[in-house]
């Protein structure tokens, strides 16, 4: 899954630690999501969408399958 978390965070001049605090998760979780190494749960994705005031599909996009 692709996401725009890093871009949206940078637009607001938030550090990873600040975003982690706003989403009530650890900084490692933000790092992993931004790097695409971890896909957040639906509740966390909705929480991020509420925080950024955007629809969830504007932040997280499904990767097209290779075939």
């Amino acid at each position: 899954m692709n996401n725009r978390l890093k871009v949206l965070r940078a637009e607001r001049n938030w550090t990873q630690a600040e975003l982690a605090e706003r989403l009530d998760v650890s900084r490692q979780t933000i790092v992993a999501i931004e790097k695409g190494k971890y896909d957040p749960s639906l509740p966390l994705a909705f929480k991020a969408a509420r925080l950024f005031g955007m629809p969830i599909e504007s932040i997280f996009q499904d990767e097209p399958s290779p075939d």
Partner: protein
Amino acid sequence: MSASENYCDKEKRNTKSIAVWTVLWLLSTAALGFGPKFIWDYHMLISLVLVWVNLFFGYKMVVANKQLLEDLDELQQKIMFLGMAFALGCTVVVATVLGLLEAIRLVDSAINPSTILFVTGITYLIGIAMAKRKYS
């Protein structure tokens, strides 16, 4: 526990709690292990009381650990889960082999059960480290 407590505050509180109960449990375990022989000459009542104290501290340690896991975020919970799965798998494999060593006469005496605890502890740490690396 306040509603405004953030993730870091919860982590600090839970770490402190688990540290306190683990130290108390370890001290009571040491007292139970050495006290009867060196301090109170196998007095049954004192030993019995200390067994219950040890069990109580153990219970509080388990509860503190459960609270710590519940308050972790979803990725940290997953990391702990992977670490525990690795430790459990390794413990089953190693314990099975160690249990057979005496029966097939490769060693003279039964393996000390604390060896299993050691394997569990070490493989848990290795499992956590591997999972953290995977998501970092």
